[in-house]
C-alpha cells in the first residue's frame, strides 16, 4: 500500500488515504473530532468550525481539510477545546435556545456538545434575537430560534432528497434559513420523510406530533457524551 498517508493526531500515528479529510481519517482511527455542520454522506460545509483542529499550529476545519503526509494535528488539547467552547458559547447566545421545553432536548447535538465540554453557562451576553417560526406545513415545523445555520438540511435536501426545499438568505447576523417558496414551507415540495428533516442537529426542523417520544434517561445523550461511540471503536493498545 504505497498510497498510505501517515499523520499524527495528539501524538498518535494514524494512516489515511489521499483525498480523505482529517475528520474522516481520525474517525476511522477511533479519534472523535467534535462537529456540528458535518454529517456523513453530505458535502463538507466547514461552517460551524466546531471541528477546528490545529494543523502544524494553524487552525483548520477538520471536515474540509484533506490529509497530507507528516501533518501534526492537535485535537483534544486544552487550547483547541477552549476554542470550541467559545464557539459553542456563541451559538447559544446568538439564538434563542430554550432547552427546557425543546422537543429535541436530550437528542440535540448542540446541547450534547455543550454537555461534553461541561458548559454550565455561556460566557457571552445573550442576544435574544428576533426570529420567526414556520408552522404552515402539516407535518414539519421550522423553528428559526434554534437554527444554527449548519446547512445540513440545505445540503440533504439537494444531495439526498433531490429537492431544493431549503436555502439560506441574508448575510451575517441577518442570515437565516429560507424555503424554496414565496414565504411558507407548506408551499414547497418538502415531505416529512425527507432526509433533510432528519438531518437537523438541533430542534430547528422538527417532525410534528412525535415530540418527547423518549423519556428522560433513554435519550441519545443522557448517559454518554456525544462521540463516545467513535472513541469506543478505537483500536486498543
Amino acid at each position, binding site marked *: 500500500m504505497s498510497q498510505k498517508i501517515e499523520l499524527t493526531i495528539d501524538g498518535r500515528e494514524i494512516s489515511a488515504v489521499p483525498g480523505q479529510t482529517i475528520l474522516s481519517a481520525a474517525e476511522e482511527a477511533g479519534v472523535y473530532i467534535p462537529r456540528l455542520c458535518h454529517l456523513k454522506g453530505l458535502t463538507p460545509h466547514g461552517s460551524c468550525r466546531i471541528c477546528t483542529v490545529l494543523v502544524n499550529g494553524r487552525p483548520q476545519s477538520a471536515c474540509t481539510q484533506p490529509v497530507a503526509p507528516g501533518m501534526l494535528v492537535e485535537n483534544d488539547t486544552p487550547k483547541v477545546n477552549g476554542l470550541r467552547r467559545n464557539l459553542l458559547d456563541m451559538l447559544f447566545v446568538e439564538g434563542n435556545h430554550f*432547552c427546557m421545553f*425543546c422537543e429535541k432536548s436530550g437528542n440535540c447535538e448542540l446541547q450534547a456538545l455543550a*454537555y461534553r465540554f461541561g458548559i*454550565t453557562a455561556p460566557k457571552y451576553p*445573550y442576544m435574544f434575537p428576533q*426570529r420567526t417560526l414556520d408552522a404552515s406545513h402539516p407535518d414539519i415545523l421550522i423553528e428559526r430560534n434554534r437554527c444554527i445555520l449548519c446547512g445540513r438540511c440545505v445540503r440533504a435536501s439537494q444531495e439526498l432528497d433531490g429537492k431544493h426545499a431549503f436555502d439560506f438568505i441574508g448575510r451575517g447576523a441577518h442570515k437565516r434559513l429560507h424555503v424554496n417558496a414565496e414565504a411558507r414551507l407548506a408551499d414547497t415540495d418538502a415531505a416529512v420523510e425527507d432526509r433533510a428533516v432528519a438531518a437537523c442537529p438541533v430542534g430547528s426542523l422538527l417532525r410534528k406530533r412525535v415530540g418527547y417520544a423518549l423519556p428522560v434517561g433513554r435519550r441519545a445523550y443522557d*448517559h454518554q*457524551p456525544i462521540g463516545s461511540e467513535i472513541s469506543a471503536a478505537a483500536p486498543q493498545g
Partner: protein
Amino acid sequence: MAKPRVATTSLAGCFGCHMSLLDIDERILQLIELVDFDKSPIDDFKNFTGRCAVGLIEGGCCNEENVAVLRDFRAHCDVLISVGDCAIMGGIPALRNTIPLEECYREAYLEGPTVHNPAGRIPNDPELPLLLNKVYPCHEVVKVDYHLPGCPPLADTLWQALVALLNNQPLELPYELVKYD
C-alpha cells in the same frame, strides 16, 4: 464553631429549583446538621441576619426588586450560585425578551382572552416593582461564582454542589448531572 449559613431566594422563577432542593429527601436532615439557613423561603427569614457562606439564586431578573435582592445576596454571600436555567439564561420568563414591554402589558391587562378589566387600567401603584425592559440572567447583573444548570437542576446536582462547597472541595459535576432540561 458556628455552622456556615446558606441563603436562598427565588427571583423570576417558578420555585421549581427550591422544590428540587427539597427533593434531596432525607439528606435534608444531614444538610441541617451541616448548615444553618439564613434569608430563605425555607425558614421565611425576610432579611439577612449576617454573613453567609453560600447563596443560591433561583430565577433571573425581571424587575427592579429582583435586582435589589440579587445585589443584596452578592453583598452578603461568599459564594453565589445561579441555580437553574432561569437564573442562567432567563428561562421561560425571558420568552418576553423579543416582545416589546408595552405589548406584554397590553396582553396581560387589556387584551388577553381571560382578562376582565372594564376600567382598562394597567397597574401602576408605586408599591409595585418596575419591570425591566428585558429579563436578565443573574450573571449579567452581578458576579456569579457557579452555575448549576437544569430546569430544575436534579436534587443530586444541588446536593453534590453544596457538599463540595461546604467541604472546601472543587465543584465538579459529573457528565450525568450537567443537564439543561
